[in-house]
């Protein structure tokens, strides 16, 4: 496990400059605040968090779709964040993406063949026949057939469309696949099919996944590691099983508790406990102390003034919470 990571993100900031009509100066909005992550080749990092936590901004930054404010993204040997927004073709081919909504992520005026072959057309010099053969092969890989080549996206169901999007993303044999909520727009039975398909493909092709989702339970099956994002910060990161079974950060615990329990009595008790907690976010501007302090059930006096740094957690990984530090006073890491 001592090999170098495929992608290494260090202290990444993504900032949007919002300007309204009557303002002369733009106001910064920090979507991603000092995120550091790494993914090894062939491994899967699950990134979870509620909407607005900066997951998709992080994905967009990795894909080079939004400019990076500061920090570094290193992919293989390439320093990506220094390249502003356009990556060289050599890198571009290696990172592909599948997006959330398959009803919007496929161009409605193109045929399935055009959609899957477009990255090949742009990035390779294949002959038409070679390309056609590869497209058929890719279609079969995602359990579709060559009868579908000449059809248009509106003739397919959500799950089939997502398969087409996956086939298109796999066409260039990327080393990293960014999956931005790939199943949250699908119905539950199809979700499992797509997750299983991604699982198979990863093991067969050795692709690394950056899997973004808001459902921790879904992510933990397929992930090697899980990172939990809250308001642009990574609050906890670690081996998938440890994060899922023994969450260290209060926010991770809250995320897990958002999944309803089967036992009505237990569920009722939990709901009562949740109602007792304050449920508003810290304003993003002028933030002092821990980002989670206003929603945290176990908030300490020092959380108001001091931001916790990542502390190692027993069982692997880190969590940015003083409770973790107090439990293991000697083990400050990173």
């Amino acid at each position: 496990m001592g090999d170098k990571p495929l992608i290494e993100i260090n202290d990444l900031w993504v900032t949007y400059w919002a300007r309204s009509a009557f303002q002369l100066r733009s106001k910064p909005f920090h979507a991603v605040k000092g995120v550091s992550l790494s993914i090894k080749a062939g491994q899967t990092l699950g990134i979870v968090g509620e909407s607005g936590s900066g997951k998709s901004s992080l994905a967009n930054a990795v894909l080079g779709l939004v400019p990076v404010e500061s920090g570094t993204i290193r992919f293989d040997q390439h320093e990506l964040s220094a390249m502003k927004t356009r990556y060289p073709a050599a890198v571009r081919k290696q990172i592909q993406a599948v997006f959330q909504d398959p009803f919007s992520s496929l161009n409605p005026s193109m045929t399935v063949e055009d959609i899957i072959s477009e990255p090949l057309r742009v990035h390779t010099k294949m002959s038409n026949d070679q390309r056609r053969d590869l497209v058929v092969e890719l279609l079969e890989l995602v359990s579709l057939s060559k009868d579908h080549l000449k059809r248009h996206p509106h003739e397919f169901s959500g799950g089939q469309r997502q398969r087409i999007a996956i086939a298109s993303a796999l066409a260039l044999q990327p080393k990293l696949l960014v999956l931005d909520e790939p199943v949250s727009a699908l119905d539950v039975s199809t979700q499992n099919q797509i997750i299983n398909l991604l699982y198979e493909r990863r093991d067969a092709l050795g692709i690394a996944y950056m899997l973004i989702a808001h459902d921790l339970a879904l992510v933990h099956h397929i992930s090697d590691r899980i990172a939990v994002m809250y308001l642009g910060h990574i609050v906890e990161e670690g081996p998938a099983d440890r994060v899922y079974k023994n969450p260290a950060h209060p926010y991770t615990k809250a995320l897990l508790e958002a999944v309803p329990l089967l036992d009505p009595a237990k569920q009722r008790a939990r709901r009562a406990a949740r109602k007792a907690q304050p449920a508003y976010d810290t304003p993003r501007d002028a933030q002092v102390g821990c980002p989670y302090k206003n929603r945290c059930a176990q908030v300490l006096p020092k959380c108001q003034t001091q931001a916790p740094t990542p502390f190692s957690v027993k069982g692997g990984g880190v969590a940015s919470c003083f409770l973790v530090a107090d439990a293991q006073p000697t083990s400050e890491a990173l």
Partner: protein
Amino acid sequence: MLRLIGQRLIALIPLLFIVSVLTFSFTALLPGDPVDLIIGDEGTAEQYEMVRERLGMNVPIVSRYFQWLGRAAQGDLGTSFFNSVPVMDAVMQRLPVTISLTAVSALIAVIVGMAAGIAAALNPRSWIDRLATFGATLGQAIPNFWFGILLVAFFAVSLRWFPATGFTPLSTSPWEWLRSVTLPALALGLSSSAAIARQVRSAMVGVLQQDYIRAARAQGLSRRRVVFKHVLKNALIPVVAVLSFQITILLGGALIVEQVFAINGLGSLAISAVRQQDIPMIQGIVLVSVFIVVAIQLTTDMIYGFLNPKARPS
């Protein structure tokens, strides 16, 4: 695609039939009597009967309609009540004038409207966007005949770059044709280019927010390929729908702009025919105009089907 064309062509038959009935019966319902106009105040009752007989107006209206329809189907729209010129010849003589005016202004509207709309959509909230939006509002608010008079005052009278009035056929001199058609086409195309610019902008902004644009960029496609292949083709779908009736509006507007520039097109022919109650002429002009509008709509439907796979019958 062939099926789409076939379906549309079959749907035209009842449409054209209804239009022909309406055209014929409306002109028959016009107040006043063309015979009175022809014989004048001094006409006697015998003269009145004679003229009525000669114009074939003694025959019941239903059989007159079928006679007219039968001849119209063979390309004979009858002869003018007043100068015995075949209606078809008169219309065909004026038609190229109006068509070239409409076509050039449609071309201007498409080029200006698309360029402004694309530039505005790709730079939202920039000064380009604001200028285009302001220009589009202004363009739709200004009446075309007034804009035409301004153009004449500035470019024809003061600068003398273009002739102020008249029309040179394309076959006589392409250069003079272009000079004579530029100002009226600009005047006519103004409001349509504004309408198209608005439509292009909003359609493109909508498409740019779609995930398939994000996906195309994420796959590493060049900006130009993304804009022209992915954005524009999908954004053009609503634009083509607008274009269809913009061209129809242009055709109607041409009749007015022709008056400002003293161009002898279909407009002046129609106005004099109405003034004289020259019924065969009015019927002929209306019928030919309807044919042109239907042809334009058929063409835009075809383009629509080409751009939008969902519109094709499966």
